[in-house]
């Protein structure tokens, strides 16, 4: 802890940056920042799911389950908004628990297809049932976060800056929770199930229960991200959670890397910058699928361990330099 600025210093600086960031941006960029914050929760929750080795194609829909559920709880039952978000997250986790019974009879490729099919069935239900899901047009006029005051600060959650602070606090806390889980013996068991499920089972690990556990927790956080989205936009519809969003999640994850918790975060930030700033500014939005495909191929070929591997190398260099200084 002798070294300046020290760990706590780095974190404080980071926090200040997050607080000041929206004030350096335009209104539309602030809106993008809100979406980015929500997507970070989504993609980190996806990584948690992949820890046990299974990649799902239903994650975008699970996010939607949280969004629909939280919206309906406020609309139909009059539940107070932040509480409805937590209930929405729990609903997504519960749906995942139910889905896990058929899905975890399958592995690998079959699980991938199975999870996609399960997601499409849920989307079909949203489209099919006008009551309560609103059919293909979805739900509109969803309650926003109620305004409130803390001391002299007034939070009006129609303002992207206010909502950004709220979302960032929720996402920050969720990331901390997921990190704590991963670093616990539960997280070690997730990794064990991933690398050698037979040996894990011979060591007394109920492999299927742990796969389910990771799936359910990840789905809960995905549902929370959906709820955050629903009460910001004020509307949800089945097409928001379609295969395109799932492809985004996969791209962020693969380009960022999955070895660390910050890998997918970097992937998500990098692609959002490319997407929203570069492509939009130069008017190449139509080219988006092409650009994404290209980036994916380039990253798989030249950076198979993701953007995070660059950071890891950088950190290792800093550590070496420090050791050099000391000796």
């Amino acid at each position, binding site marked *: 802890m002798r070294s300046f600025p020290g760990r706590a210093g780095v974190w404080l600086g980071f926090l200040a940056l997050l607080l000041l960031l929206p004030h350096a941006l335009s209104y539309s960029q602030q809106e993008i920042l809100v979406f980015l914050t929500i997507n970070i929760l989504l993609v980190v929750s996806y990584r948690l799911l992949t820890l046990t080795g299974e990649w799902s194609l239903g994650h975008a829909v699970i996010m939607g389950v949280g969004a629909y559920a939280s919206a309906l709880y406020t609309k139909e039952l009059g539940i107070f908004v932040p509480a409805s978000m937590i209930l929405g997250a729990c609903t997504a986790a519960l749906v995942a628990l139910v889905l896990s019974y058929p899905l975890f009879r399958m592995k690998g490729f079959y699980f991938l297809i199975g999870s996609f099919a399960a997601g499409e069935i849920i989307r079909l239900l949203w489209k099919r049932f006008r009551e309560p899901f609103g059919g293909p047009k979805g739900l509109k006029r969803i309650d926003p976060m109620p305004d409130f005051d803390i001391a002299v600060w007034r939070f009006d959650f129609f303002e992207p800056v206010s909502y950004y602070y709220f979302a960032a606090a929720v996402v920050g806390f969720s990331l901390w929770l997921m990190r704590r889980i991963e670093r616990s*013996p539960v997280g070690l068991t997730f990794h064990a199930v991933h*690398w050698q499920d037979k040996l894990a089972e*011979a060591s007394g690990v109920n492999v299927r229960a742990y796969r389910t556990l990771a799936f359910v927790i990840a789905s809960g956080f995905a549902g929370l991200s959906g709820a955050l989205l629903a009460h910001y936009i004020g509307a949800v519809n089945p097409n928001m959670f379609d295969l395109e969003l799932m492809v985004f999640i996969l791209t962020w994850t693969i380009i960022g890397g999955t070895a660390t918790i910050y890998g997918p975060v970097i992937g998500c930030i990098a692609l959002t910058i490319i997407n929203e700033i570069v492509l939009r500014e130069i008017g190449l939005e139509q080219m988006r699928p092409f650009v994404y495909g290209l980036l994916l191929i380039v990253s798989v070929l030249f950076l198979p361990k993701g953007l995070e591997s660059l950071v890891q190398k950088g950190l290792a260099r800093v550590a070496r330099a420090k050791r050099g200084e000391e000796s």
Partner: protein
Amino acid sequence: MSEKFLEVSGLGMRFGGITAIDNLGFSVEYGEIRGVIGPNGAGKTTTFNVISGFYKPTAGSVRLRGETISGLRMYEVARRGIVRTFQHSTLFTEMTVMENVLVGTHMRYRPNIFSSIVGRDAEDRRRARTRATESLEFFGLLERASDRAADLPHGHQRALGLAIALAAQPEVMLLDEPFAGMNPEETKSMMSLMFKLRDSGVTILIVEHDMRAIMGICDYITVMNFGRLLAEGRPEEIRTDPAVVEAYLGSARDVA
């Protein structure tokens, strides 16, 4: 009274048209070292796979202290005290040696997600680590605790497989060719560790092709051939059993 410690009876295992085990029966007493030998393809690994719950037998049963355990899932069998190792080095290769062995402690210190989050499992984590450290020390792997398992030399990898199993504090260990790929020196020190394990109350079943080792450590030997029981007896009886010599040792005369 005559309830056996571990009893295999009428065991059969068919894969489609192949009969890997056929009407196999034997029993093991508490605290012994039992060798299971036989030519390649005799069904030894399959027998271990059935006892450990990896396969469900197509006939017969396995009983531990009178309780039928055949048909249970592998983790359920493990939780009843039977822990196995695998024929080929099967490890969590991307994890550190210490993390590998910590997975072995899973059954004793079942992780709980809620106490992990609020930080109330510090005591369990400390005990698990102590247990893992003991197990590594037993197999002389402590200095390598923070190495990646994939980076260990072959002999150490075999030992790590045993250390993971021992960390689970099993009553019965099923060891599938633990000495494979070890040099004579490593084999010798591993043999003395087997005696130490047995003396600490672990019953050991061991499949091994290294006859010198088998004859040296086993109290009793079960010989299989074509999925069936061929002979049973003390090492010196097996060595001179004409049927065994013909079926098995005949091709490796130098052993006797």
